[in-house]
């Protein structure tokens, strides 16, 4: 099933090709990460482009993925999808626009070897999906 982010009333959500809502329209930005995952950015009206600081990841059914973030850090984005998933993601990127995946390819959670970009005191670091820092934010 294809889906695209769309402007609705100044905020962005995701609907499928039958106009069924997948992700509610309450974000300033939604990036398609591949394999059915979407990364959202909250709205912060005082910001020049209304980009907020809260990032989350949703799956293709609109379920919010629970992420383990190291203490004292905030989630800033998916950094690497992991060896196997990254290969699939690249294949998807090359072959499909918009993406048309088999349901078995759609991710419901992040792979065990995926990496997250995290932020602490304005410095970036990298953590694994278990919530362990692999690169200190410095």
């Amino acid at each position, binding site marked *: 099933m294809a889906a695209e982010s769309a402007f609705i009333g100044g905020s962005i959500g995701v609907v499928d090709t039958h106009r069924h809502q997948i992700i509610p329209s309450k974000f300033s930005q939604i990036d398609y990460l591949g394999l059915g995952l979407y990364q959202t950015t909250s709205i912060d009206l005082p910001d020049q*482009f*209304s980009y907020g600081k809260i990032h989350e990841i949703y799956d293709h059914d609109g379920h919010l993925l629970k992420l383990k973030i190291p203490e004292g850090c905030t989630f800033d984005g998916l950094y690497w999808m992991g060896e196997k998933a*990254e290969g699939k993601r690249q294949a998807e*990127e*090359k072959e499909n626009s918009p993406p048309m995946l088999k349901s078995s390819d759609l991710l419901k959670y992040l792979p065990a070897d995926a990496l997250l970009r995290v932020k602490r005191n304005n410095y970036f670091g990298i953590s694994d999906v278990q919530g362990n820092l692999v*690169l200190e934010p410095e």
Partner: protein
Amino acid sequence: MEKPGDGLAMVFKGERDGRYRRKDAFVFHCRDHSLHTVDSTAIFEQLEKYSDGMHKFSAQSRGVGYLDENGKIAIAAQYYDGSDFSNGTAMAVIHEGGGKFRHPQIDKLGREIAAQSPLIGEQSEQEKKVERIKSRTLADFRPFDKMNSPWVYVYKTEKDRFIEHTLEERKHFDSYAWKQKCSPDRNRKEMFGDFLQDYRLIGMSRRQVVDLLGPADVGGYQTKEDYLRYQMEPIQSESCTQQSTTSIRIVFNTEDRVDYWYYTNGFAKTPSVKKDILLAPATYLYPMFAPGEISAVPEL
């Protein structure tokens, strides 16, 4: 920190040192989480991405070179420019002086594999076609239909230089690839052509522009222009004595909507495009269109 390419990425400790240049750079391996110190003589003027285990870098005044996956200099900085590596090779750009450039294919040791394509100074078939309408004034065209026929955007500057958009194959704009500055088969110029075909840029809100094209490489308020600027590759131009990195500048009006756009390379700029692309069948392009006839072309 960069986005990883092939599970490798450049990361930087500490504060930014200048606009693009940074100190304390490391190569981070996503697979085993190892960190390798980057050769201190390699300077990054623009964030790139690892591709095929090699990372393009530029050293001030010496040109472009490549780092290996351990952060060591694999090919010393010596080229005018170069492509990313793919399947063990990359295309280097060597400036031979007098506006002439050579494009040898190189391997991971910097050895030339085969001579590539004619010198840029030589006229291609497409350039000859452009030549036929070189006396015309600013015009931009694209086909009436939605078929895969080529469309061309041409402009003429005071010095008879041209830039053209020629898309042999129509494709939809890929926002993700544009934002990543990475597409397997489309350069930035072609991607922007795709963008112009799919969207009406003039009148678009700043937010929509940023949503589709991502944050600008440079933005600001200069010479009474409120603009967003996106980097393009060097663009070939007829009888051009120099090449430089071209960017597109999108200028906003007081209502924060796109007023016009143009190309600029820091030294010169093209005429501003103030309305959405005009439609014209590809067959109309050659050899007609005298000045004045352009107004007869139906608007989008």
